[in-house]
């Protein structure tokens, strides 16, 4: 539901069209499938957070057609994306590339997981020595236990 108004903002021209219109579809199913896959990674620039595959904005349509043109022209997926970045900047990619500026973004999840794992691991290790279960009961404790367990207590 978060996208509801996003659409509204995207379509200031108030002409809601649905994504991927019949006239855009490529004849070759394999190429069309590639185009659909690529489209989910390309941002509709005037929308809030929609891919061109989802968006109904006119710009998204232009980009979908452009992606298909590049595919028909024989570009690989990477070449299509590079082409789009050269034209529109990194902002067009919904999956940021691994660059110096984005390194933190990609490393952070693994980093946090490792840190969490280490903390848990060391917490276990440092406290293993003090496990009270391994200490035998004292004489007094045995007495107390016997008293508790004896049926006539």
């Amino acid at each position, binding site marked *: 539901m978060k*996208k509801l108004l996003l659409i509204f903002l995207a379509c200031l021209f108030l002409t809601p069209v649905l994504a991927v219109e019949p006239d855009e579809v490529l004849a070759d199913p394999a190429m069309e499938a590639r185009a659909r896959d690529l489209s989910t990674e390309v941002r509709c620039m005037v929308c809030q957070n929609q*891919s061109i595959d989802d968006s109904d904005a006119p710009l998204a349509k232009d980009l979908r057609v452009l992606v298909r043109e590049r595919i028909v022209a024989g570009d690989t997926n990477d070449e299509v994306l590079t082409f789009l970045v050269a034209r529109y900047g*990194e902002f067009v990619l*919904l999956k940021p590339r691994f660059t110096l500026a984005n390194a*933190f973004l990609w490393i*952070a999840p693994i980093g946090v997981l490792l840190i969490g*794992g280490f903390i848990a691991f060391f917490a276990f290790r440092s406290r293993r020595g003090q496990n009270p279960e391994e200490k035998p009961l004292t004489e007094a404790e045995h007495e107390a236990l016997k008293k508790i367990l004896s049926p006539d207590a």
Partner: protein
Amino acid sequence: MISELGHVALLLALALSCVQALVPLVGAQRGDARMMAVGSSTALGVFVFVSLAFAALTYAYLVSDFSVRNVWENSHSQKPFLFKFTGVWGNHEGSMLLWVGILTLFSALVALFGNNLPAQLKANVLAIQGWIATTFLLFVTLTSNPFERLFPAPFEGRDLNPILQDIGLAIHPPMLYLGYVGFSVAFSFAIAALISGRIDAAWARWVRPWTLTAWLFLTLGISMGSYWAYYELGWGGWWFWDPVENASFMPWLFGTALLHSAVVMEKRNALKIWTILLAILTFSMSLLGTFLVRSGVLTSVHTFASDPSRGVFILMILLLFIGGGLALFALRAGTLKQGGIFAPISREGALVLNNVLLTTAATTVLIGTLYPLALEALTGEKISVGPPYFNLTFGPLMLPLLLAMPFGPFLAWKRGDLKAVMQRLSWVLALAFVGLLTTFAVQTKTSIAAPFGVAAAVWLIFGALAELVDRARFFRVPLKTAFSRLFGLPRSAWGTTLAHAGMGITLLGIVGVSVYEREAVAVKQPGDTIELSGYTVTLEGIRPNSGPNYTEQVADLTVRRGGTVVAVLSPSKRLYQARNFPTTEAGIKTFGASQLYATLGDFDDKGGVVVRIYDKPLVLFIWIGTLFMGAGGVVSLTDRRLRVGAPKRAKPHAAAVPAE
């Protein structure tokens, strides 16, 4: 007049909540019982005044009093009654009032039902709630006054955003806020514990029902929002990794972790410091979510109006509570004593794994959501972080969590035996394998991921059931005994099973719709047909129609399967006159847990229209699973253990159970 009274009530609430924030706090420091008791009465008073303010605004909406600017901006005299009512919170000012209202509701509930809390703890908790209420009441009165007047009063209002004119607005925001804001109680308990330096298993027992309540509403609120998006948006997506969705998902992930770590603390007196930290982080995420949505940093359907001064104000509230909470934690956490020792392979160990994975996942979502904002602020460079990023990072973190989930409840406290658990789960593993092979055999589209997804779902659902089966000793004791044992099991065990199985059901829906969805799109004239997954859809015709505040073009689609009519779908394109705002309404027919979903695109000049049909297999399981999770929460809440102060059972529990 009524609006002015509402405004006065709001100001009185603000004044009273200042008292609530200060007097009990001082009283708790001095051990003054009368000052501490002020907490309860002021909390109730603040709640009553905020409710009056809310009632006043509601009245203005119901009678369409357009001399109130907020009503003029967001309502219309022709709007259906339900939407006049729900429109109260379909805008920035009203939704903030709802936020504060729910906050004060929780404070009032703590005041009413917290009689068995130690006086000092209760006073501190209510004071912290008072602090939160005061800052947010200040925010409402200073930057977002819903009672502002207009002169001269306009004759007609500007209507509510048509997308919000839906039953979803009646359910989604209140549920979500009950969840978001409900975590404030856990936060206040954590801060109170840090102030007093005392924390024990009893503390965890008091916190757990509140956390569970908040979690349950947040679960249902998010799920409801997702279903609303699904049917309203017109392309049938159910989760978009949109920043605003993430804003509600982060408190859910942290809250889920908190729920589990509080169990360890209650049962074993361990993970105390961590639980306190999680309580602070969870509510911090609620505040961050409020900031992201309400400040205008992000533009979305939820940001009804952006005003930079509001953003700065909420940012200050955010810094006060998150910064203050974490600073207090850093200062005082050392004074809390750790307790409870356990081996890595144990129930505690499983819950630690749950916590590590959930908090990592939550942090990933947090970083993905904030990174573009931070990068742009620091370097001016604009990047996008969208669904492909989250699927790639969040997904792999969930995988081990889901696989490990059935093990957790089987492991013994302190030290568990993994091999023995594996033996008890062997039949579930076999079932999962059957699921895998069956999916491979029957699937209509070649997919490797889907059979494994189905196997994981089977593993989760039956793994959860296996715990009940095992604890009731089915197949080991006579059937009758097993059944009486089953119903004698603690409600919290039932809750765990329901929630964990719900996760499996949701996963099944996700796998089904992500892998096997099919779509057909074409320009059609009346009389034309479309074929999709064995259905023949005929466009019978297009007719105009009108509702109370809109006109629409409805397409009548007849769906046949093997010659017989199985459904009639009526997707439409609407135009809401007041805002000249078009929307698309989907036509949906449910078959079991699957749905056929139709929407309309543009009309052409030759009388044709773009028709789009989706076949969405098992899609309903996504939300049915969340209902199971919610039900698990409800059942667990009714557990006697959590009804603190409930008298002990008179007769020994479930007499039929033989002594062990």
